[in-house]
């Protein structure tokens, strides 16, 4: 994992901080959580920003991440997902159900799904600000 972080361009200082915040990273051998970001269009510098901002992402359940990303793409029809994740890397720590809960709340208030999607995309911190 450390080698991968170096390849992504994290400085020694950043690696030290990231592993200080989440020491479990040092035990993580699988790189699936990084690979999936690339599959969904994130560039190296965006992946780096996500890791530095949200070190807990690296040890999150891969299955949960896939479910969350699929929800963004398939249900919310978010285009250029990488930009939204780069704006709020903490979204990647959300459960799919948390987003779904917010979406359903908006739908029950009369908004259409594309409007909700637009809200989340233009302000990815909307859940944190609630």
């Amino acid at each position, binding site marked *: 994992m450390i080698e991968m972080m170096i390849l992504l*361009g994290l400085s020694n200082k950043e690696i030290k901080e990231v592993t200080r915040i989440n020491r*479990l990273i040092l035990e993580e051998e699988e790189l699936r959580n990084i690979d999936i970001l690339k599959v969904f269009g994130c560039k190296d510098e965006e992946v780096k920003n996500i890791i530095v901002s949200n070190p807990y992402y690296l040890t*999150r*359940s891969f299955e949960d991440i896939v479910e969350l990303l699929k929800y963004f793409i398939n249900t919310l029809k978010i285009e250029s997902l990488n930009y939204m994740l780069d*704006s709020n*890397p903490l979204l990647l720590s959300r459960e799919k159900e*948390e987003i779904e809960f917010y979406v359903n709340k908006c739908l029950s208030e009369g908004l259409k799904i594309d409007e909700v999607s637009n809200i989340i995309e233009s302000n990815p*911190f909307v859940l944190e600000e609630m």
Partner: protein
Amino acid sequence: MDLKTFMKDKGYSDGEINSILSSYALKSTKESVLAVRIVRQFELFNSLGYTDEEFITMSKKSSALLNFGEKYIVEKLAYLKSKGYKSNEIKEITLDCPQVFNLSQSNLEKHLRHFEEIGYTEPQTLRMAYKNPTLFVLGGKNIDEKIKHFLEQGYSKEDAIKITRQSPSIFNQKVTNIEKTEDFLRQMNYSEVEVKKIIKSMPEIYSFSTDTLKRKYEQLLQFGYKPQTASKMFATLPQLFALTEENIKRKIEFMKESGYSSTQILGMTRVLPHIFSYSEDNMRDKMNYFEDRGYSREEVIHMTKELPALYCYTKDNIERKISFLEEIGLGQVPLDSPKQLMQSVDLTYARYQYFKSRDINIDESNYRRLFINEKQFQRDYKVGKTELLKVFNYERDMASEGMKNS
């Protein structure tokens, strides 16, 4: 010297000596035989790198250790070495759980294999056993019981493996204790989704007593957060449970010394509790970065108050956004509207170039056009970001610009 005097000289108390010598493992061995063995055992463990104190601690946990033959001990250490553990790790494992010596190699192997049968990989199993050496000696039934508990609670097998892998001490807990933690979270009015999120994000939560967890929540209230906000902060960042009161207090003090008011700190950390996990060095670095770029401390406070995520983005990320805005004469945007720094430079660039291609000048008076939401942009200009990003590609254009300049 007789055995009891030898042991007393080594540092055992009278009570410990009596308890050890009357233990099941030693009571049938003649004292004269035992005396020779124990002296020899100290020498053996000293030669293997253990101090007298360490060996005494181990023998208090497992008196049988005093009676094993050299070949048996050496073979057991060789077995651990064959599993890939380094010498210092083997020492840590045996110090923590000297009972490892009590089990036959085939039993140890059986216990490790049990994890692999459940679905852990061998490296995962060995790592877990290093973190919690009692796993070498815990029976399969105990392990299965915990896995079963998580499956019954609706976690997937992958989740159960991940949770226990990250916090293998769960295997030492009684199921009733595990349930107590889960019930506590439910009593805190967390939904089932949130309970699972908290547990998956921070399985170490099981090692805290419910009183400790309650105290951590009350501490946030004492710092000035409303009950609902405090609950939400833990749900957003369950790892907050692992931070000590001292940690949080120090971070708040640091932010106050840096110029933030209490209200600003509460507001920022409410939205972004992750600030509590970032080091002061990291935050200081970020403040210095902005100040080196010419912003005053008041301006830095204003910007980060509006967009606390500025403390989490990498400096490169922020630098690219600010430099580009300066390049197109919009250097005041980060101050006027810090939230615009959320938007990717790729999109800002693509939209800017689009306007430029249509002879629309973007300046201080109309820069918000660059940052309007996608739906409105499409409605106003009949073009979406996907098309724009294809035509006006920041990275590609910057690279070719760089080539031209070189």
